[in-house]
Structures are given as C-alpha cells and as structure tokens.
C-alpha cells in the first residue's frame, strides 16, 4: 500500500472511532449507546488489522463488538421486562383492576421444592 493511501485510511478509521465514541456518550436512548460502542470496537479492530496485528484485531472485534453488545442488550431487555412486571403488579394491586383479578391461584407441584 502506498503512503498516502495508508494515511487516508488511518485518518478515516480514527475519525470514525472518535465520532462513534462521542455518540455513545451523548445518545438519547440506551440502545443507541450500545450500538455506538459496537461501532467503536469495530473501528478499532479494523485499525489493529491495518497495523498488521490480525490476532488482536480478531479478538477486539469478537469481544468488543459482538459479545459485550449481546450482554448489554440482554441486560436492557431484562430491565424492560422487570419494569413491565412492576407496572403490572401495581396495577393489579390497585382498585382499577377488579375485572382482571381471578381467584384461581397457581398450582404448586412437588417438584417446585427441589433445588
């Protein structure tokens, strides 16, 4: 690769990494921040490969852009689920939900007591 091409590519990759990192901090929604972190990890992985370190590049992309993004998205889904459950609990305990309450409890079979 010629000198100027390397310089231009390096500049674009680093500008992209800095821009996506700033987006991760200043985004409105949490999931936008998570995706911006994935983009930052991908840009830095690309930079590692351009600096002739493909082992580190593969590790950065697989851990920073794939695995940590997945874990964050699972945690956000769980937050949403917990919040929906809390709202349902409060609604059922209040007086507005007389038509939705039933008197049949959930049956507990014997296998519930095992660990």
């Amino acid at each position, binding site marked *: 690769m010629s000198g100027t091409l390397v310089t231009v590519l390096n500049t674009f990759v680093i500008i992209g990494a*800095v821009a996506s990192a*700033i987006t991760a*901090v*200043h985004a*409105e*929604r*949490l*999931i936008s921040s998570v995706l911006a972190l994935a983009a930052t990890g991908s840009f830095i992985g690309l930079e590692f490969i351009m600096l002739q370190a*493909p*082992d580190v*590049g*593969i*590790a950065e992309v*697989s*851990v920073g852009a*794939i*695995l940590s993004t*997945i*874990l964050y998205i*699972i*945690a*956000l*889904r*769980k*937050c*949403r*689920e917990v*919040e*929906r*459950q*809390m*709202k*349902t*609990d*409060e*609604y*059922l*305990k*209040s007086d*507005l*939900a007389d038509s*939705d*309450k*039933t*008197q*049949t*409890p*959930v049956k507990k079979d014997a*296998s*519930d007591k*095992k*660990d």
Partner: protein
Amino acid sequence: MNRKTRIRKIELFVSLAVILIIGVVGAARMAGSAPTYDGSRTDVVGLYENPANYDTADADGVSDIIVKENNQYTAALNTVYSVTFNFRGYDTLGESFILVGAIAGTMAILRKKGNKASAQAVGTDAGTVVKPMKVVDYRGGAKKKGKTYRQKPVIMQSCANILLPFTLVYGWYIVLHGAMSPGGGFQGGVISAGIVLLVYLAFGLTGLRKTFHPGFLHSSETIAEIFYICVGLAGVFAGMNFCFNFVFINNGTFREESAMLMNDAVGYHVCAGICCLLIMMLEALDIDMGASDEEESGIAKKAALSVNAQELTYREADI
C-alpha cells in the same frame, strides 16, 4: 427542557474542543520526537542469561530482537505464538483467570435455584394472581406432560439446523490453526461460543436447557485451566522455566509442541466459559413464556396507562 439541552450542547462542544486540542498537541510532539527504531542496540532481553550471546548488531528495536532470537530460545513456529505462550505464558494464565472470575461473579448473581420459569406467578397477596397464560404448542400439536412451549419461526429453526456444524467447525479451525494463521485460543473460543445464541434464537429457552448444562460446562472449563497449568509446570519439573516449549513430535509434516497444547486448552476454556456465561444471562431473561398472550398484553397495556410513569426508573422509550 431548554436548560438541559443547552447544558448538553455546551458539554458536547467542550469535550470536542478538549479532544481536538490534546490530539493536535500530541501529534505535533510526536512528529518532532525521535523515531522508535533508531538502529542502536537495545538491552532489554538481558533478563535472560547472557546478552553477549545475541547477534543483534543490526537489530531494529525490541521486536526485531525477539524475532531473531525466537528460534534459538523457543523453537516455536510463530513469533506471536511464542510470545503469548512461552515468553509470556504467565500473562495468558492471568487472562484465563479473568474469565473464571467473571463467570463466578455472574453465577453469584444470576444462579437460579430451580429450572422453573418464575414468570408464571405474579403478585404476593393471597388470591390476587394472574391466571397462567396459554401458549402455542411447540411443533404444532405435541404436548409433553402438560408443558407447552412457545413456537419459534420455522425459518430460524431451519437456519440454525444448517449453521450449527459450520459455526463449530469454523471456530475450532481458528483455535487449532493458531500457529499458522491469525487467531488462536481466545478468538476461536468466542466464535465457537456463538452456538448458544443460535440454539436460543431457534429453539428458545427450553431448547437451550435441553442442549446445554451450565454446571458441566463450568467444570470442563476448570479442567481445561488445570491442563494449561500442568503443561506449563512440566518445564519446571524438568529444570527449565515455567511455560517452557518442548517439541515432542516432529516428523516432516506433523509437529506438536507444548505451546499448541496450551493453545487448545485456552480455546476450550474460553468456549466453555462463554457458553456458560451466555446461558446464565439468557436464563435470567426468562421471556420464553413471557408476555404476549392476548390477556397478558391487555393487562400490561392497561397497567402502562394507569401507572404514573415517572415513578419508575427507566422510561420504556429510552430502552
């Protein structure tokens, strides 16, 4: 909220200005300083026995010395390999410990007592509970002892059935060819741990529980770690250093050395560990039998409208 957006804009501009100033000043200083490789003799590898043994008169920095003396000291196939598993085998062991610690911490928080979906019972007052919800049969018609499962789309099941062996083969190709091509244990382990996600997307949480057992995965991960330590200690018992590289099969085409054994141990360790981690996180989600039956979503909608949204921590639009 005009004041809040103004504060955020000021914050954005200030952070951009700081990054710009530091970047420009740093680049100017780097351009004016001496280069890294200046051709003079560096003496950092004097932590081994005798620097006079090196023929590094025309060496170009530390990396050149390691490349030149690699064959003499480790007889490994690949320079990166030899640095990771022989010169710095102790650091790689520490990296494996990081993974074990992370999984132990996740287990402490997310370990469930039983295998039941706890989303069925809602509410603590006696008598005011939601009815157990009806779910669609898995595989259209076959009920197993009263348990019914949510059906996933057929296209996900078909694609997962085709892609699972290819993913495993690709991931383990990267692990086993760590000496010849880029990759190695860590990278290939993370790639082969993607089968957990494939099984989860195609067959749901029930399919995941039938396929994997997180206790067994954690045990096998620990056994891989012990194997790494034993291979590293074999050099100590022979009178050499920790993580010494001994070549025990060297035909013309086939070559096996201890760095390869350590690499495979790390690959298995990472694969089992990340499978265990993903299974625990996905079990915490527990939305396989969650809300989107008609009754349940109706109640959830009414609840969302009636409860004051500002009392709760997260707004749904944010997530």
